[in-house]
């Protein structure tokens, strides 16, 4: 596999950044939505319950919603 690339021109650089940011914005929204759905799921709530228990063992009391 390659570990080097040719030096990009200014136009190539701008195009690469534009492509990167476009994909980043699309995936960012999807990632946030997945996280919120996970929070609302029974599995997500079970994870948080377990974390509250572990925190409580260390004296960090997080009350339930």
């Amino acid at each position, binding site marked *: 596999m390659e570990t080097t690339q040719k030096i990009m021109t200014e136009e190539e650089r701008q195009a690469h950044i534009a492509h*990167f940011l476009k994909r980043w914005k699309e995936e960012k929204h999807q990632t946030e939505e997945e*996280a919120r759905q*996970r929070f609302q799921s029974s599995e997500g709530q079970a994870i948080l319950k377990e*974390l509250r228990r*572990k925190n409580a063992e260390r004296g*960090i009391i997080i009350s339930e919603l």
Partner: protein
Amino acid sequence: MQKEELSSPNYEFRFIGGSKNSYTFQTINQVTYEIVFKPTPYLFGESAIFSYFTYEFSIILVNNPMDREPPVDLKIPPTIAAIFTDFFNNAADTVVIYICDSSDGRQVFRKRKFDRWFEHYKYSFIKIDSSFDEADGTHYPVSLILKERNPFRNEICAQFMNIVGGFNQNK
């Protein structure tokens, strides 16, 4: 960052995994966060060998039951640092890019906050700061973070400089 922030014990966290390598934790104010390391091979192009170790790091506020912004919480920075370290411990060749979201105009605030965390928890990491600028003038501060001993360190730095056209390096 205040000294007590450094000594504050972190919250318990859990690695959820999945395709985006998610971690989660909850604060004393019942605010829930996910820390995500999303594979981002398209940063360097998929022909670069280290592309498969390149991830975008993001902090997602998943749920805030308060009717206002969460207050300063001294346990959050060490929690994020512990998660960061955990992820790198499992994959030492990891390269992380952090992009400060500019959609609400608070990118400079996010950058400063991230820099403060990094300054105190950098250990053996190196960070390269730069920015991505859109044609409409929107400015996104970005940081690339990798282990000092990453075997592709020089190639990664050179390729990142190629993409952004120059950088500032902090260690």
